[in-house]
């Protein structure tokens, strides 16, 4: 029998202009590491050279099917650019089962920033969170600034998964998500709360705000 599991995944990464900017110069996201592109490739198998920063997309979902027919559904929370000025809300990593921290292999500063995010996750996220370090833009290896050895060594030291991807060509993208799916503890029903909130996983412990108020006539209010 096939089983379905659902997980919340957050993408963190650096828009490399993070350092050098004053509050005035909000550049368009062309020097960004490619989180949204990676999601777009994974979810829709598309790539767009000129896409705007993530606008209007709350979160996307994609399902990975493993060899034993277990399906793992990812609910992907892109950061909507909030991390650009180090202003990511802690809400993102609450209950996140996995996090993909993305750097740009053509920008060594972006790996530095990725390390900061990883430290933050190790401190604040659930200890069981699966963290993958992902070097994006592997198609631009001619301009490579971060060697595979360096990144891999760091990932090993911290016990992270690691892989390189190209959102542009699609290389490595499904591999990294599949590897994460395999690493997740597929035993207990996960608690991705956002999915619960939208009622996609049936049972939920909390209350459903979208539920219509009880019918006044059948359900007598307090009659003190």
């Amino acid at each position, binding site marked *: 029998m096939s089983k379905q599991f659902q997980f919340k995944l957050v993408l963190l990464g650096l828009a490399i202009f993070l350092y050098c900017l004053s*509050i005035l110069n909000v550049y368009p996201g062309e020097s960004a590491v490619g989180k949204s592109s990676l999601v777009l490739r994974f979810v829709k198998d598309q790539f767009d050279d000129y896409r705007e920063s993530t606008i209007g997309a*709350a979160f996307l979902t994609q399902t990975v099917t493993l060899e034993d027919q277990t399906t793992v559904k990812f609910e992907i929370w892109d950061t909507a650019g909030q991390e650009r000025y180090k202003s990511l809300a*802690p*809400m993102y990593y*609450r209950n996140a089962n996995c996090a993909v921290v993305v750097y740009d292999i053509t920008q060594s500063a972006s790996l530095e920033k990725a390390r900061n995010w990883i430290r933050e996750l190790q401190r604040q996220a659930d200890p069981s969170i699966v963290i993958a370090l992902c070097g994006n833009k592997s198609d631009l290896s001619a301009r490579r600034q971060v060697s595979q050895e360096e990144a891999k060594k760091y990932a090993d030291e911290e016990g992270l998964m690691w892989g390189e991807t190209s959102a542009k060509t699609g290389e490595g993208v499904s591999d990294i998500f599949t590897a994460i799916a395999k690493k997740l503890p597929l035993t207990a029903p996960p608690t991705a709360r956002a999915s619960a909130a939208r009622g996609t996983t049936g049972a939920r412990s909390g209350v459903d*705000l979208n539920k219509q108020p009880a019918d006044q006539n059948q359900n007598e209010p*307090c009659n003190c």
Partner: protein
Amino acid sequence: MDEEYDVIVLGTGLTECVLSGLLSKEGKKVLHMDRNDYYGGDSASLNLTQLYRKFRPGQEPPSELGRDRDYAVDLIPKFIIASGELTQILVHTDVTRYLEFKQIAGSFVYREGKISKVPSTEMEAVRSPLMGLFEKRRAKKFFEFLQSWKDEDPTTHQGINLDRDTMKTVYEKFGLEAGTQDFIGHAMALYLDDDYITKPARATYERIVLYTSSMARYGKSPYIYPLYGLGELPQSFARLSAIYGGTYMLDKPIDEIVTDGEGKFIGVRSGAETVKARQVIGDPSYFGAGKATEGKVRVVDEGKVVRAICVLKHPIPETEDADSCQIIIPQNQVGRRNDIYIAMVSSTHNVCSKGIYIAIVSTIVETDKPELEIAPGLKLLGPIHDKRVVILTNYMPSLTRPSL
């Protein structure tokens, strides 16, 4: 200075974040800044590190309290009334998808030295010690009257005109005792003082209906509360804003609201830089609140609130070991003008470690010894493990202008 925004929002409190979310969604270009490195402003929920940094700088949180990340201690208590306006905003803007809510287990009211549960079912009402047998019958008639009220059907009005007759008239018509009036006006209509009694009954009627329909909605109490604390609310609206292109900058000192010769808003200065926008919105602390004023007075003092954030190692006594509750102490019961509120949450709501309970006791300040004013509330908590007292001033804009 090429970058110009439609709106700059200062402070990430709930109101500011709701506005930022709605404005971004409308297509406005929003820059949202906060001087703190966390979301929520005065209504943030803090982890232990942040809590100690704020109240006891230089002191480390004791390890017996458990893990830092398990804490989200609210600075301002607020339970969300299930059928109220905030719930509608949450549903309407669809931020409910980022949040999970749980019920508050019970709502209690203080009367003659004891606390009793506000009945949530007819059975509880029949057994409630809040009223004697005859008073219960009178109260039942009163609630039946409210419940059957239809504006368009005069036969349901029993000679009462909600828009003309005062609440006093209504109470008298049903012969309700003073203690019952306290209970209805304060524990159900949630009035903080007794001014409502001499006003037309309509508003009170509506608040009681809101309370009872909220109570009916999920069962245990009329209140719901977000997992991980109230600070999740502003964060969810901030996310809404960011998804629609809002730019977020925390940890950004705001040094000046820059205006032109005529006092018209130009922009906001941080350090040596000024960022321009057509409009600015913010909480009072960004408009000179609490500072010695030189030049323009933009906000005025509207009175103070005192709160004690208490760490307990047990549920509040006499609350049936509720994992969360509200206790209202109506002002008359303790000889005050304003009610005292207690709001308690615990690890059920993912705001602290197991075995810890966080209770906030608050009231509107009436004397120059605010801490003494909350003593009747503190007394109900049992042994208090740790306590932080905060006194905050409420501010209002000094002039009201049509905005947006």
